């Protein structure tokens, strides 16, 4: 499920950075990604957190240019990468026939869902997989889809878009700490 470095690394090498990936979308899709990017500037606390990252990491996102949740999480990841002083190398792959092997190996609940994101150490070793939607998005969907039967107890977030940014950032931070505290990487870096 996390896949191995041997499997993931060629996909990472073939993937595109954020700007190139978004530029490959049609104009309507591009506007969605640009709108989300505009909504998701990091606040000062988030900026400081990400700016203090010391371990290089890779992030690979299997996504769809047409997909709203992908634009939301993808733009959030782009904002985080932009604030990381190049510690984060973020790449995107479109789910398509060309990436079907990866999509099939990453199925969630029997579906080739997107987005699926791998957080990866500097040498290609996978550390975590995230996807498809975050908790706040599922709570929102459940409230709308099944109402009182949703069993959602938490109140809606004040800003649902920025809540997803916070959720995505929390997972990136978790993996950054994992890598920072990793004995094998501490030995490698002498820190």
């Amino acid at each position, binding site marked *: 499920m996390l896949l191995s470095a041997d499997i993931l690394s060629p996909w990472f090498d073939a993937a595109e950075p954020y700007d190139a990936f978004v530029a490959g979308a049609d104009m309507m899709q591009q506007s969605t990604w640009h709108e989300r990017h505009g909504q998701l500037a990091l606040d000062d606390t988030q900026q400081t957190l990400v700016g203090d990252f010391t371990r290089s990491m890779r992030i690979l996102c299997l996504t769809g240019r047409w997909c709203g949740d992908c634009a939301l999480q993808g733009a959030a990841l782009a904002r985080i990468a932009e604030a990381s002083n190049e510690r984060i190398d973020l790449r995107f792959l479109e789910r398509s026939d060309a990436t079907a092997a990866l999509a099939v190996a990453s199925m*969630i609940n029997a579906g080739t869902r997107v987005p699926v994101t791998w957080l990866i150490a500097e040498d290609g070793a996978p*550390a975590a997989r995230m996807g498809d939607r975050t*908790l706040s998005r599922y709570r929102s*969907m459940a409230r709308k889809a099944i109402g009182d039967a949703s069993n959602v107890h938490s109140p809606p977030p004040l800003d649902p878009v920025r809540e997803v940014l916070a959720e995505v950032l929390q997972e990136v931070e978790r993996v950054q700490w*994992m890598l920072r*505290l990793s004995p094998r990487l501490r030995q490698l870096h002498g820190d």
Partner: protein
Amino acid sequence: MPIGLRAADLATAFEAASDWDAYLASDVDRAGAWRSTREGLLLTSDQTQLLGGFTRTMRVLVVSGIWCGDCVRQGPIAQAIADASPCIDLRMIDRDHVASPVAHLTINAGARVPVTVFMAEDFEPVSVFGDRTIHYYRHMAAQQFGASCPVPGAGLPDDVQAAVVQDWLDEFERVHLLLRLSGRLRQVHGD
């Protein structure tokens, strides 16, 4: 040959895994620490109410080491959550068991534990959770890079313990909502 973990692989591992009592019976000398942690865990009424409202069966497989300190801290949390919901079918399997899926779940180039696989009722994989949660990593980082040093043998501060429980509960809730809203499972259950 397909890559990645499949439902059939997970079903086999799940069948070979043990419930809480059987898992602890595998090493009576070390079981005391697990039981002691479990007895000290009390979910809040809100948490219990949320879990009591779960309606989809989910399979949860904790790949663990009974000797492992992080597993002693987290395994009982997973069990406390499962105890609060008849919909959660939780099993534990030793990392080195012949049927363990750990080879597919390496984290940062290591066979780390605990690592937990969340599945649908028919063993279709949904998510991987591990090794440590964000709040435990923050606690570790504060101990190692902060002003204070850890006291040898000291337990986890209550606020960190509560935060780690909530980290676990959030993933259970996210996966439950994913399954509750799944088109294929709504068709199966007619809801």
